[in-house]
């Protein structure tokens, strides 16, 4: 009866809830936001007080449409809202306004990137199909106190976009890649802040196993996963659990589960006796809404380039290495900053990329105050004293041979502190690289003639190509590190040949 675990095909579908960036709630004008006093972001509508009625927030609908456009989905002519009826203390009306029959986003797909063979190698790209996405209201927050529970309704009515994938994912790693890709899409487009720690992005995972080619197995749903590592761990644990059950001849029970992150274990939620009957029907208080095509086009035009499209452009058009490109596209502000620098000095995008992705980010990280974002979301970029044109100038100086790459890093560090122009710093520090061919040839010949380096010389002449580096050190030393390395190499090889 026991078949090897490797022969199971894992089938995963995700339902991701994303809080949309708006000032007011989705059906009420109450404000909302993280960290407020309990029950301070409330109003009759979001509380469902007697006589209150919902009114759709246009900005919430537009954010949903923008997400739909970002995933190449269909935006229908008309969308409408339904009532999902169930009783729960965090649900003020004991029904939730959602979209069952006519959601605002239909179909679409998200491009994901799987990890490559190593960090420097881009992994495979795949598209994960979406079934749909719909706009609904969030519920309040239950917390547990001694002898009872407490309810805070601040979160009730916050705009939520529920994004439902097709069961296209085949591993926990793919699920993680999907969430990262979705996170980048929504944050870069300003659709959501998607901070999982603040509950702005939450994920339910549907998992089933089957033998390849067989029909889909019974699936379980694990709810309210609120960290990417949690999603990954929960899915992996559930796969192991289901495989164990199936291999022991027991069926997988269709159930709703939770994930205990500290214990690293899933558990069955104390679910209702039978499956919930939500008695969906069209909400009579909200008429169907016709979505204006001109509005859709305006919203489309306002979307930023997608991260993977930008990455492809960097690799193909700018010739960037993958490591630098992937770091740059991970943050929209950083990517745009980089592009501004390239516009100022188009001849060497790779040089600019390396300086930005390595050195500038390092400077930003080192200077970040505790609690500020560290790369790849450099909060300090906006206030950074180095401006794109200045960094571009620095690279131009390096390309022209005025300074070495090592010197450029030192100049950048000082630009970061003082905001001075690179040329000024180079001049003040007397860093200008020595590209005087005559003087360099004199030093080269001195070193070549020096008996201290005869051994290296002999090794080089014997065929050890790397031995030439042993001669370069002293040359650099005798020029106070200012000799133009490329020129030194050229002269040295000429002298030795």
């Amino acid at each position: 009866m026991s078949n090897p675990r490797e022969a199971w095909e894992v089938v995963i579908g995700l339902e991701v809830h994303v809080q949309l960036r708006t000032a007011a709630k989705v059906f009420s004008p109450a404000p909302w936001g993280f960290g407020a006093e309990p029950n301070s972001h409330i109003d009759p509508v979001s509380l469902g007080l007697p006589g209150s009625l919902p009114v759709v927030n246009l900005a919430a609908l537009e954010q949903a449409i923008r997400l739909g456009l970002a995933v190449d989905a269909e935006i229908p002519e008309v969308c409408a809202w339904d009532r999902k009826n169930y009783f729960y203390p965090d649900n003020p009306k004991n029904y939730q306004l959602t979209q069952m029959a006519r959601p605002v986003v239909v179909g679409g797909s998200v491009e994901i990137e799987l990890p490559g063979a190593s960090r420097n190698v881009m992994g495979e790209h795949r598209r994960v199909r979406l079934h749909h996405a719909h706009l609904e209201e969030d519920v309040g927050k239950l917390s547990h106190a001694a002898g009872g529970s407490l309810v805070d309704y601040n979160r009730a009515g916050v705009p939520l976009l529920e994004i439902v994938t097709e069961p296209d994912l085949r591993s926990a790693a793919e699920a993680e890649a999907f969430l990262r890709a979705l996170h980048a899409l929504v944050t870069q487009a300003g659709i959501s802040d998607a901070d999982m720690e603040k509950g702005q992005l939450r994920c339910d995972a549907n998992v089933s196993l089957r033998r390849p080619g067989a029909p889909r197995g019974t699936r379980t749903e694990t709810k309210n996963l609120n960290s990417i590592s949690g999603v990954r761990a929960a899915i992996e644990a559930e796969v192991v659990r289901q495989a164990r059950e199936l291999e022991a001849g027991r069926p997988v029970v269709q159930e709703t589960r939770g994930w205990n992150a500290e214990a690293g274990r899933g558990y069955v939620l104390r679910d209702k006796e039978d499956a919930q009957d939500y008695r969906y029907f069209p909400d009579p208080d909200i008429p169907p809404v016709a979505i204006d095509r001109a509005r859709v086009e305006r919203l489309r035009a306002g979307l930023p380039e997608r991260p993977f499209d930008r990455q492809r452009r960097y690799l193909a058009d700018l010739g960037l290495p993958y490591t630098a490109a992937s770091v740059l596209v991970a943050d929209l502000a950083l990517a745009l900053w980089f592009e501004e620098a390239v516009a100022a000095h188009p001849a060497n995008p790779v040089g600019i990329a390396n300086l930005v992705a390595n050195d500038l980010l390092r400077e930003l990280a080192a200077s970040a105050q505790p609690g500020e974002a560290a790369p790849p979301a450099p909060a300090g970029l906006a206030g950074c004293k180095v401006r794109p044109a200045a960094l571009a100038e620095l690279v131009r100086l390096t390309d022209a041979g005025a300074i070495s790459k090592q010197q450029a890093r030192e100049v950048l560090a000082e630009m970061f502190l003082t905001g001075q122009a690179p040329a000024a710093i180079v001049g003040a520090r007397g860093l200008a690289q020595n590209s005087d061919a005559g003087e360099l040839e004199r030093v080269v010949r001195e070193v070549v003639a020096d008996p201290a380096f005869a051994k290296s010389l002999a090794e080089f002449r014997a065929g050890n190509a790397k031995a030439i580096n042993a001669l370069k050190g002293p040359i650099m030393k005798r020029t106070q590190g200012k000799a133009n390395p490329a020129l030194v190499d050229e002269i040295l090889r000429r002298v030795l040949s």
Partner: protein
Amino acid sequence: MPKGLDIDHVARLARLSLAPEERERYAAQLGQVLGHFAALASMGAGPADAGLRAPVADASLRADQPGQPLPPTDFLRNAPASRDGQVAVPRVVDDAS
């Protein structure tokens, strides 16, 4: 009871506790009323909507301007039980549905 009316199931869905004699009475009354609805059986499937409404233009939706929130006291004044600015309820054991 007409075929299919499980009064206990419906009462549970509706969160209504029914005393035994209530149970009997409502089941009988509902059965009688539902029997009268046989006239509906001749209808075909309905429109997806309540049928009265043309779509409204998205331009008529509300602008994203937060209004004044309701002061917590105005809300909690009507609450049967509250603590620390939150509504107090018996311990809720399972997590969200």
